[in-house]
C-alpha cells in the first residue's frame, strides 16, 4: 500500500480556486448582506438582518418574485410538455427522425445573445417575421411580452427535456410493448397505461431541473425587454443585477442573491434525491 497523502496534491489544484471562488465568496456574500454596503459611497455599516427586512417590505422585490414565478409556471410546463411530445413522436428509429431530433436540439447550443437577437428580429413589429402575419408589437405589450419570452425560451431550450425524455423512453423494455400488443391495447392505451407511467420519474426530475434553470432566468429578459413594459417582465435575477450593478447597493443585492441561493439549494437537494437511486443501479 502506498501513501494516500499524495491525494491532497491531486486535489489541491482544483481545491484552491474552489475555495477562492466558491467557498470564500459565499461567506463574503453573507457578510455583504449583513451590511449597508454602498460601493460608491464606500459606506459600510453593520445592519444585521436589516437588508432582509428591507427586502420583505420592498414592493419591487415582491413584484420581481411574482414575475419570476409567473415566468417559471409558464415556461416549465411548456418546456416539459413540448419536450415530452417531441420525444414521443421522434422516438422511433427512422433516419429522418434522427435528423429532426438534431434540429430540435440544435438551438440549445447557442448563447442567450444569439437567441434573443434572432427573436428580436423575428418579433420586430415592422420588419419581423411575425409582422408578416399579424400587426402587433409583442415585446412592448403588457400581456404578450412575458409569453414571448416563454416562447423564446422554449425554442432555445426544448432540446434538453426532449433528450432526457428520449433517454427515459429507451429504458422501457421492448417486451412490455410487445406484451401490450398481444393484449390488443390501442396506441392511446399504451401511451396512457405504459409509456407515461414509466416516464413518471423522468418527468419529475425534468420538472425539478427545469425549475432550477428557469427560475434563474435573466439574459432573455435583459436583452429582449429590459424588464419592461412597465416592469411586467422584471424578474428576480434582473432585480438583483440592477440593485448591484446599476444602484450599487451591494449589501441589499447580496441579500437577494442569498435568498435565491437558498431557494436553488433546496431545489437542487430535491434533484439529487431524485437522481441518486437511479445512479446506484
Amino acid at each position, binding site marked *: 500500500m502506498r501513501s494516500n497523502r499524495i491525494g491532497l496534491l491531486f486535489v489541491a*489544484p482544483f481545491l484552491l480556486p474552489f475555495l477562492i*471562488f466558491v467557498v470564500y465568496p459565499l461567506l463574503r456574500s453573507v457578510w455583504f448582506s449583513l451590511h449597508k454596503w454602498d460601493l460608491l459611497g464606500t459606506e459600510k455599516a453593520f445592519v444585521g438582518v436589516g437588508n432582509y427586512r428591507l427586502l420583505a417590505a420592498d414592493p419591487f422585490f415582491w413584484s420581481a418574485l411574482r414575475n419570476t414565478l409567473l415566468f417559471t409556471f409558464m415556461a416549465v410546463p411548456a418546456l416539459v410538455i413540448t419536450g415530452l411530445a417531441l420525444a414521443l413522436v421522434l422516438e422511433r428509429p427512422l433516419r429522418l427522425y434522427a435528423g429532426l431530433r438534431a434540429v430540435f436540439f440544435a438551438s440549445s447550443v447557442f448563447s442567450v*445573445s*444569439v437567441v434573443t437577437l434572432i427573436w428580436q*428580429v423575428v418579433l420586430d413589429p415592422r420588419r419581423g417575421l411575425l409582422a408578416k402575419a399579424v400587426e402587433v408589437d409583442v415585446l412592448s405589450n403588457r400581456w404578450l411580452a412575458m409569453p414571448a419570452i416563454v416562447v423564446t425560451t422554449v425554442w432555445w431550450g426544448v432540446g434538453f427535456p426532449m*433528450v432526457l425524455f428520449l433517454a427515459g423512453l429507451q429504458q422501457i423494455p421492448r417486451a412490455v410493448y410487445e406484451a401490450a400488443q398481444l393484449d390488443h391495447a390501442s396506441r392511446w392505451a399504451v401511451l396512457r397505461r405504459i409509456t407515461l407511467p414509466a416516464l413518471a420519474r423522468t418527468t419529475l426530475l425534468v420538472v425539478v431541473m427545469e425549475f432550477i434553470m428557469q427560475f434563474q432566468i435573466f439574459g432573455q429578459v435583459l436583452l429582449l425587454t429590459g424588464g419592461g413594459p412597465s416592469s411586467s417582465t422584471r424578474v428576480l435575477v434582473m432585480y438583483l443585477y440592477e440593485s448591484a450593478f446599476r444602484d450599487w447597493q451591494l449589501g441589499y443585492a447580496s441579500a437577494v442573491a*442569498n435568498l435565491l441561493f437558498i431557494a436553488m439549494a433546496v431545489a437542487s437537494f430535491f434533484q439529487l434525491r431524485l437522481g441518486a437511486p437511479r445512479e446506484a443501479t
Partner: protein
Amino acid sequence: MGKKLRPVPVEVIAITLVAVLWMLPMLWITALSLQPNRALLRATPLIPTQVTGENYARLFAVSEVPRWLLNSAIVALAITLLTLILSSLAGYAFARIAFPGRKAVFALVMAGMMIPEQALLLPWHEMFASTHLHNTHAALVLPRISGAFGVFLMTQFFKGIPREIEEAAELDNAGRFRTFITIMLPLARPALTTLGIFTFLGAWNDFFWPMVSATRTEMYTITIGLASLQGNFAQSEGLGFLMATVIFASLPVIVLYVIFQRHIVRGVAGGLGA
C-alpha cells in the same frame, strides 16, 4: 415478404412541418444576412431577391467581431483546458486515493454544485475590482475553473474503472502520478471529451459574469459583443450586417455541434445517470 407501399403517415408529415417551422427563424436570418442592407429597408423576404456577401466581408473590415471571437476563443479554450486538468486530477483522487479528509472535502465540493452563480457574482466583482483585474482574460477564466460539475463527472467515471487495472500498474512499478498519466487519463478519454465539449460550450456562451467583468469593448467576448448590439438594430440600417454577425459568431458552436452531436446528446442524457 415484399415491401409494402405505405402512404407516408400523417404524423411524419406533421412533425416535419413543425421542424421546418422551428428552423424558420434560422433560415430567415440566414437569408437576411445574404441581402444588401438597403434592400432590407424595404422588405425582409424569406427568399432573397438579391444575394450578396458584402455583409460578411464588412465583418472583418469594420467590426470588432474578429476581436471578440478571439477573446472568446482564448477564454473558452483556457477554461476548457484548465477544467479538464483540474477535474481529472481531483476526480481521480476522490475516486481512488483514500487521503485524509476525502469524504468531507468531496461533500463540500458536491455542495458547491448547488450554488447558483448569482450568489457568487457580487463577491467576484469586488475581488477583481480590488485587484484591478477586471477587463482581463484572467478575470473571465479564473472563476470558471472552480466549477464542481467536472469533478463530479470525473469522480464518477474513475470510480467505474476496475481497481485491478490500477493494481496491475502498481505491481508494474508505476507510481500514482505515472498511473494517472499513462493509464487513467487515456482510459478517461470519452469522459474528458464530453466534459470538454460541455465546458467549452458553457464558456463560449457565458453571459452574466463576462457582462459584469468585461466592460471595455475590446475585452468583450462574442456573446457579450452580440448582446451589446441588441436593441439598436431597429433603427440601424444594417439588419443584414447584424444577422451576418449573428451567424458568423455562431459558426464555432454550430461546427462543434455538427461534429460532436452524438457526444453532446449522449452527455445530456447521461447527466440523468441513465
